């Protein structure tokens, strides 16, 4: 029943009649919001917490949603703010840098079997550089490239979600790619 409703209709329904309608919104956007948070934070635990906080905040503030923006825009804005807050708190803790090194995802598990250990080490090193390069981007550029590569959204969807012109989205993506290229080309590792 609720599957055919738009996000805005679901919000209205959740506010007026049935709070459980918000569950449908969560179901639609949980993967994308989680992907966004992971791309912004690069840590599963932090991404999960940020996504959870996003939906809780959205649910808590449902009555205040006036429909001036799309529900997707609203959720993305909350999620990005949650991610930036988490990142600031993490930076404030000096011991978090050591935790980051210890909790890096084990990339070996997904490495192809035919790769030699030396190649695997190189690949791990390259992935580490990519993560660092993306995380070092300014938030507005990082958000666009994460939405494009992690959430796999089109330019039009990104423009609607972020409530900005299509040309601005393309411009930011161009700038983000350019900066990533400069950071990654500084390293002596070869690209495969």
């Amino acid at each position: 029943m609720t599957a055919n409703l738009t996000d805005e209709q679901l919000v209205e329904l959740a506010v007026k009649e049935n709070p459980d309608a918000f569950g449908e919104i969560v179901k639609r956007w949980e993967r994308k919001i989680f992907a966004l948070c992971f791309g912004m934070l690069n840590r599963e635990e932090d991404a999960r917490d940020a996504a959870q906080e996003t939906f809780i905040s959205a649910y808590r503030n449902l009555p205040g949603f006036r429909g001036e923006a799309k529900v997707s825009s609203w959720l993305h804005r909350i999620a990005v703010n949650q991610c930036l807050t988490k990142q600031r708190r993490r930076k404030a803790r000096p011991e978090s840098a050591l935790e980051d090194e210890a909790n890096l995802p084990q990339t070996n598990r997904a490495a192809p079997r035919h790769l030699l250990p030396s190649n695997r080490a190189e690949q791990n090193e390259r992935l580490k550089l990519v993560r660092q390069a993306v995380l070092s981007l300014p938030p507005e550029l990082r958000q666009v490239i994460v939405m494009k590569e992690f959430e796999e959204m089109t330019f039009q969807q990104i423009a609607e979600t972020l409530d900005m012109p299509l040309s601005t989205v393309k411009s930011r993506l161009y700038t983000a790619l350019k900066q990533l290229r400069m950071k990654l080309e500084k390293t002596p590792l070869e690209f495969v």
Partner: protein
Amino acid sequence: MFNDNQKNASCRFADEIVSYLYDEIGKQEKLDFQSHLADCASCAEEIDGFSLVRSSVQQWRAEDFAGLPTPVFEIPSAKTLERDSSSLSWFEQIRAFLLLSPNSLTRSAAFAVLAICAGLAFFVFNSLPDRDVAQSVKEPAMKANASPTAAAEAGGRNSVVSEGNKDDNQQTGSSKPLDLTEIKGKSDAKKAFAAPAKTSFRVRAEQPSVDKQTGARPKRSASAKAEKEAVKISPKPGSKQPALPDLTDIEEDNSLRLSDIFAEISMR
């Protein structure tokens, strides 16, 4: 469209690089761009560099994220949220409200500005000098000028007491009634003291009379000292009463008074 970092800004196809890269381009535009790549080395190099970056980011996604299951997000019930929100500090509640209500930022800022202006106005108002005291200093001086002519003729001691607060007697520590017997023209005296003054000081001074023969008016000396003493006497509300000064050595007030003028006229 793009910023100054763009290498091939002069190339008219630069805007299409990301569209072509992500294959979000029309068929005809794609064909045009492909033929352009054959002729434009900078665009070709740009496409190659961006492709490598893309593949690295996609590899990162595949390695770290693709295999992760989607967490189960629990939305607490309304009651639980109310309980949780009550446990939040007031700062967190305000912050959460402002975070999700950008329109309220304007209202909050306007309210903050109004509160600051009100606070400043209150501070400025309170820092102004006590008007009552200042006014009270003037009025007795004016009343002294308008004292009855008999005061001048009496040549004796002339007590000028303003009908101040009842605290006046308390301040001076004396409940002695006003001695107006030496003052002739009681009606004038009544007029002089008809309007209640806001002051609360008592001044005793010998008032020199107008010389009948010469008609010389007595010189009036400045009564600033008396006024100052009077100001000292009248305490501000709520403050401790200062020590009462000795008023016996106050200079004579020889300033010109209206009563003197009237007296002179009547004599003529």
